[in-house]
């Protein structure tokens, strides 16, 4: 068959999402009913229909994406994941003595889940009759993640050793008498020492996924740098502190307006004092959630932009221009809508998000003819479902 693409290359095309909330609502409600009626078994078929709907409505350059996951495999994956998840849940909640081992097991499982989940998702993604795929082995994942994890552990041990040997530790022990325990400090130190490595870890994960990703015969290449990720997190850090400071001041003012002094003077019974307690508290919760959505919007938009703009799959490039405040608006309004509609607006919220993301993503193809299809082995869905269960957002 001789192929003739209408457009001359290179092609610069925008992504479009063509699904509608009303259409998806009908698919969703049928999925919900059949899932409940079959005690969850239909959820695997429901997932395929949902994914198919979102893939199929995502169009670029005149063609749509296709999801080819098989329900039976997903069902099998779900059953295994539920078992593993339940095991971890029990260990975490009822065997506190084994906490360290449980955490270690979870850490060791993480690279496996990343590989298995990414493989399944990519292998079942198709565009123009050519499959995506992921060629990393489990060992590759362990090798990639061992270095940063080793760094974190090593750095923590170093900081902890310095702390233990210092005058500060003995000074703190003296002041806080029986209450102070060295082990308590260990977790704080671990958290603080791990923090500077988190952007690097995320960078490595994304590079790992993109570098091993294929579209037919074209291989992915990640051209973003770790510094790009650090810049985002540094700005997030500054933004968070600034906003928390502002919120703190506002709450103090509101508290004063409602008569916080009265509370301080011990008039606990007065109604004004109760209001002084409750009003700033409500305000604080609202503010933290509100600000949280926008901070999350900032973070997710930048991470997606850096990642997408750093992707090169042979002759194909992506370009993403998500904006933090847009995502923040969407998170906030979607959450309010979903909460107050008792979940009925979930389909509407998901469609809005997909539409926005597609509208801010573009695609450049220098050439399409050189991309050829390649035969590939089958992939089980266990990792994908485990990834879902543990709420890991690994995909792009």
């Amino acid at each position, binding site marked *: *068959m001789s*192929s*003739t*693409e*209408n457009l001359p290359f290179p092609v610069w095309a925008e992504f479009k999402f*063509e*699904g509608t909330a009303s*259409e*998806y*609502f*009908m*698919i*969703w*409600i*049928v999925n*919900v*009913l059949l*899932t*409940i009626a079959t*005690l*969850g078994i239909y*959820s695997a*078929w429901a*997932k395929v*229909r*949902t994914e*198919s*709907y979102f*893939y*199929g*409505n995502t169009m670029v350059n*005149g*063609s*749509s994406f*296709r999801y080819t996951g098989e329900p039976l495999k997903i069902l099998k994956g779900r059953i295994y994941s539920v078992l593993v998840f339940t095991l971890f849940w029990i260990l975490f909640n*009822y*065997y*506190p*003595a084994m906490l360290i081992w449980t955490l270690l097991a979870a850490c060791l499982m993480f690279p496996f889940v990343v590989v298995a989940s990414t493989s399944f998702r990519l292998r079942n993604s198709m*565009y*123009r*009759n*050519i499959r995506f795929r992921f060629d990393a082995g489990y060992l590759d994942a362990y090798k990639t993640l061992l270095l940063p994890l080793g760094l974190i552990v090593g750095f923590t041990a170093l900081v902890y050793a310095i702390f233990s040997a210092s005058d500060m530790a003995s000074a703190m022990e003296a002041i806080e008498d029986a209450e102070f325990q060295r082990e308590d400090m260990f977790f704080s130190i671990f958290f603080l020492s791990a923090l500077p490595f988190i952007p690097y870890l995320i960078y490595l994960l994304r590079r790992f996924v993109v570098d091993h990703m294929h*579209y*037919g015969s074209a291989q992915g290449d990640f051209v973003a740098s770790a510094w790009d990720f650090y810049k985002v997190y540094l700005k997030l850090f500054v933004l968070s502190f600034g906003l928390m400071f502002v919120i703190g001041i506002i709450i103090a003012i509101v508290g004063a307006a409602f008569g916080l002094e009265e509370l301080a003077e011990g008039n606990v019974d007065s109604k004004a004092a109760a209001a002084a307690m409750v009003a700033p508290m409500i305000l604080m919760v609202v503010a933290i959630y509100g600000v949280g959505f926008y901070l999350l919007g900032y973070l997710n938009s930048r991470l997606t932009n850096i990642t997408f703009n750093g992707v090169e799959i042979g002759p194909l490039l992506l370009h993403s221009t998500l904006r933090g405040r847009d995502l923040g608006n969407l998170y906030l309004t979607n*959450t309010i809508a*979903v*909460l107050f509609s*008792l*979940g009925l607006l*979930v389909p509407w*919220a998901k469609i809005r998000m997909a539409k926005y993301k597609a509208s801010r993503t573009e695609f450049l193809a220098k050439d*399409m*003819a*050189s*991309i*050829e*299809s390649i035969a590939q082995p089958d992939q089980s869905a266990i990792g994908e479902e485990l990834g*879902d269960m543990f*709420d890991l957002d690994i995909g792009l």
Partner: protein
Amino acid sequence: MTLRIVGKLYSGRSALAEDAVAVCSNSGYISFESTVGESVKFSDVRISERVGDIPRTMTFPDGVMFETSDNDQVDRWLDQCGGRTSWRHRLERSASFAGVALVVTALVVLISAKWGIPAFSDYIADRLPPEVDAVIAAGALEALDEGVFEPSKLPETDQDGIRERFQQLVPANAKTNFQIFFRSGGFIGANAFALPDGSVVVTDELVVISTHPDELGSILLHEIGHVVHRHSLRQVIRHSWLAVLGLLIIGDVSSAGTLVLALPSVLVQSAYSREFESEADDYALERMRDIGLDPIHFATFMERIERCAFEEEETLPECVRAHAEDEAQAGTKTGGWLKYLSTHPANAERIARFKTSQ
């Protein structure tokens, strides 16, 4: 009748697209207008199931794929030549089915939350051995000692007296090893609670504000009631099923889903814990009648706890005295909004039960 379907062909060898028109005969054969090739029977073509209005794909035995947005035309052809159309899609397109699905789902959720989950969970709990209670309790007191409590400052003699009283109140045929622990309450103030293995923890503050031994006894009976009725275990099982029900509705475990579930599950959970509180009250009331304690002690003690629970150690006696004076003058008032925020059943109602059952 021969049908024409406009779409695109993808060879599968490269990512290039080619405009094409499929010609579908009513005897079930398909071929393409522009290309020279054999007709293929529809049963040899993998035709994707219709989902909403997303483009349909037809994959041929040689790996070539035809993609078309003309869903209706594809369905018409399948109808004509006896192929299967999707029953799911027919359900998903029917407004009346969506209405029925909505009502049925809402009913199933309400009925499960109100009766199904409690009944089923209690059925499971009844069949679990007592060792499970011990597993749930394991490490809980140690964790609380580390995070919340300070060692008790009550004199040994007082502790021994209450310990003795507690052992008298423990049900005679109990298989559980009931034990009482004393702790300084810290920020949780005057309170008592039970762990599923039979450990009952009483804070110093609670002991200090009790003015009659039977007041403390009534609260201890309430806590014993929690253990006897295995409320912790039943709560764990109920909450787990509630989470499962939530996941079934949301469909996937995505992060958007978990937030949606938060509000309704908090409401249902607090309804369950109100049920447990009144079950423990029932137990306390019944035992008090059996032993011959005056139920009024529970009522008066609850009123005082409500007022003085979070006083500082130094001001506790002062609060108790002030409460007694106010009591002598008039009845107490309970805040309206507290009623809804409290995890306990509206305390006024609980207190009233014990007052009227003298």
